[in-house]
């Protein structure tokens, strides 16, 4: 019995990785600058490299793909944690306003330190996620404050408060971004829509330390299963509910905010990936979390690929592609929930 689900888990994981690799491959070989498959391989392996090929592959396409993969993985993982902790299948970092909070803080950073620390310099790049996390925490605190009633979180109200907080932070962000000088403003606007357009290796490196949270999450992921029990049962198995909740939430805010700092706000990944993961590998969080991350990765890679090829020469940000696909799915989820 358990070996069947076990085998299913590994199959899903293997197929998922294959799809992700295929998506990365498509993204690497297609684009406004035409390159043959052979050219790409030669460039990757360093066989008689041509400078313009090197430039396209190593400076533009590869960092974008790697960054997309990391961000997608982080968002998918964070989404499944947030859904697990809140026991709410409609929760998503974007809908809850965590993205907006992180976004506000990052724009504030760009605004306050324009000229002092260049946002694309090393110090700026490393500091931006820290600001993002402060913003994400702020948003989460606000949401908790307003959605909590008599010590418990009402799932529907959580979303509603999230929407309100998101639009408030959105308005503030817009206000601040209008005070910026034109160059920074351009950058802020492109980035706010949730885009991988500016991807570079520095952003990839910025993301890496935050991925250290993943082992922390994986090691405790079995505890998320216990959250699904009733509150009394949680206490009887000796779970420190509040402490565990805070650790999980902090980890997911860290992942989300780091993602927002490098790629802006990409909504709906954290909503959809966990659902697909649950359908694929069942209800155990030790399995849901990696699969959910993988699904998120695939979604971002494919979404970005669609955004940059279908609309060429213009680009549509991956955030918008994903939300156009995500909304019908959300409505479908609403239709299925009872009561």
């Amino acid at each position: 019995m358990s070996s069947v689900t076990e085998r299913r888990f590994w199959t899903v994981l293997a197929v998922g990785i294959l799809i992700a690799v295929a998506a990365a491959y498509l993204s690497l070989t297609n684009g406004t600058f035409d390159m043959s498959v052979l050219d790409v391989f030669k460039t990757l392996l360093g066989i008689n490299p041509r400078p313009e090929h090197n430039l396209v592959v190593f400076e533009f396409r590869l960092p974008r793909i790697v960054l997309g993969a990391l961000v997608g993985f982080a968002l998918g993982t964070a989404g499944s944690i947030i859904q697990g902790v809140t026991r709410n299948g409609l929760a998503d970092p974007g809908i809850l306003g965590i993205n907006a909070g992180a976004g506000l803080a990052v724009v504030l950073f760009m605004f306050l330190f324009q000229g002092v620390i260049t946002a694309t310099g090393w110090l700026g790049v490393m500091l931006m996620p820290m600001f993002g996390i402060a913003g994400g925490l702020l948003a989460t605190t606000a949401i908790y404050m307003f959605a909590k009633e008599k010590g418990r979180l009402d799932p529907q109200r959580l979303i509603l408060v999230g929407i309100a907080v998101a639009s408030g932070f959105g308005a503030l962000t817009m206000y601040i971004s209008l005070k910026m000088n034109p160059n920074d403003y351009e950058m802020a606007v492109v980035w706010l829509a949730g885009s991988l357009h500016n991807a570079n290796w520095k952003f990839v490196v910025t993301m890496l330390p935050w991925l250290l949270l993943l082992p922390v999450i994986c090691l405790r992921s079995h505890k998320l299963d216990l959250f699904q029990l009733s509150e009394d049962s949680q206490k009887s198995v000796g779970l420190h509910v509040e402490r565990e909740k805070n650790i999980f939430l902090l980890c997911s805010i860290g992942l989300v905010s780091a993602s927002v700092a490098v790629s802006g706000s990409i909504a709906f990944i954290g909503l959809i990936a966990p659902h697909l993961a649950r359908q694929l590998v069942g209800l155990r969080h030790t399995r849901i979390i990696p699969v959910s991350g993988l699904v998120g990765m695939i979604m971002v890679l494919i979404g970005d690929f669609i955004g940059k090829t279908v609309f060429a020469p213009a680009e549509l940000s991956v955030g918008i592609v994903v939300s156009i696909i995500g909304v019908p799915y959300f409505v479908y989820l609403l239709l299925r929930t009872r009561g």
Partner: protein
Amino acid sequence: MQLKRTLPVVILGMAPAAIVLLILASILYGAKNITAVEVWNAIVAFDPDNVDHQIIISSRLPRVVGSILIGTFLAVSGALMQGMTRNYLASPSIMGVSDGSVFAVTLCMVFLPNASPNLYITSSLIGSALGTAIVFGLAWLIPNGLSPVKLAILGSIIGTFLSGTAHAMSTYFQVSQNISFWYNARLHQMDPELIRLSIPFALIGLTLALLISRYISALSLGEEVAQGLGIRTWVIKALAILATVLLTGVSVALAGKIAFVGLIIPHIARFLSGVDYRWIIPVSGVLGGIFLAACDIVARFINYPFETPVGVVTSLIGVPFFLYLIKTRGGAHRE
């Protein structure tokens, strides 16, 4: 009780004076301050070569008139929706009406690039009808979908979808610069021609709203009460939706999406004038106009000398109010 009777009368009586003052303030203050004497001259002896006169007649006056009208339209549609659905969160921006309108205007710009302003207004109306239809249709399909929270979630999700799709189309067909004019809800480029064109639609909407106001009062007490009084509720609901669609459609055609006016103002109007929609609707209209015109003046000065989109101001005032409503009213029905 006595106060609740007299207060609406006082508000409506004072309104003309308040509006005249606002119009004056709005014309006098801005990136370039203008003296009252100039304003008087511009009206009685318009001189086309005088820059100040040009600013007053072609920019400041349409702007303040537009903002008053839009505020009125949005607030009245909000009041109608809240009364009809007995949903304290119902309002044009939350119900996807505005996004539907943006969606249709985008379609219009993409496929009929040389369309007349008339056509923009029409497509805006069709779009807001479409947005309303989708949101209400889904709310009807989803279990308990008409409850405040579900409806608000649905509306904002459908809104995201419609505006995302509109954005995708405008990127694909490369008209995004034209579209961003509608999105950003700036009042400073108000087109007098558009205002003139929108007046007939708005008049129909406002008249309808006032005519059905007493039936809305009955509906706001509950479907059974209304039916018990011999009201054919579906007729009233259909008329109320028609009025909402007309009023919101027109306002989005004029200035894009402006959030929260339609949500906040009816609550304030209800607080001031009690439970009778014959008072709530006109009071909402007057307060909405005053509110938006005042927000527009604030928007000119919070980042002086640069203009801030008025939607930023209304959101910054609206969000705390929205959170307050959720906190005090909870996620349940109004009872």
